[in-house]
């Protein structure tokens, strides 16, 4: 394979991260309620688009939703290699798959509907809320129980 200059961003520190961050999605607005109470509709978030693998369990991630290709936001309930209990038995997640669930389990449309999400569809990790002013701050990880 021929390497073009575009494949190799300049080699100063964090060049690749900066490169990706500039290009990627990094400010988003939340719509809908399935992440309540952690996130509410119209929260404005900063996204870290540089993550190239699934963040730790309990982190909130933005990804392309498998069925619709819309950008969705959910919490990582299980990571590659984990087992998830589903109706049909135990599901073993592949090396690039994560199980993503909404906090508001009763209404959330998530991996319980569309199954595990591939790393290719990961867009970034939500790490900071900058609006509304009353709830500015870093977004905490939270324990989640995978499965249904």
């Amino acid at each position: 394979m021929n390497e073009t200059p575009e494949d190799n961003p300049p080699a100063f520190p964090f060049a690749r991260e900066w490169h990706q961050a500039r290009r990627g999605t990094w400010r988003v607005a939340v719509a809908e309620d399935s992440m309540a109470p952690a996130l509410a509709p119209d929260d404005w978030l900063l996204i870290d688009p540089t993550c190239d693998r699934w963040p730790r369990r309990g982190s909130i991630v933005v990804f392309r939703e498998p069925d619709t290709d819309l950008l969705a936001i959910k919490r990582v309930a299980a990571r590659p290699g984990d087992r998830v209990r589903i109706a049909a038995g135990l599901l073993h997640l592949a090396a690039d798959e994560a199980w993503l669930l909404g906090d508001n389990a009763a209404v959330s449309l998530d991996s319980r509907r569309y199954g595990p999400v591939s790393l290719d569809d990961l867009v970034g990790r939500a790490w900071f809320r900058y609006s509304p002013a009353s709830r500015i701050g870093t977004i905490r990880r939270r324990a989640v129980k995978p499965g249904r």
Partner: protein
Amino acid sequence: MPRVTSWLKPTTTVYAHCDIPCGIYDPHAAELAARTVARMVEMIGKLPIENPSVADRANLVRCITIKEQHAEIVKHEIQVIWSDYFKAEHVERYPDLHDRTWKILKLASKNKQNIDAAAAAELEAAVKEFADIFWSTKK
């Protein structure tokens, strides 16, 4: 100050999708179920008529069961989208919406009662048109 907020305002929306109160509807389930009905009719047609083995008979029963179940799924999914998703403004835009829905429900019942490839194809086409209307209201 308004200028600062407009500069800060995110340009991308991420959906914390939920099923119930915010109304995420999708006609795919109905389309898949209609496809399944047609496929079962096709499979039933391929089963041997003379001297069927026990396995053939079991297959026949399974195909019929699945055909009827999926015809019922079509009815359910279409009914939910019709009653919960479509609003008066949609009916204004598509005045034949009620009639179409009613016909799909009738067709699904017909497919439960009969093994009829033509009726199955008709159901599939009608559900596809219903889905097209659904998606056109999303634009």
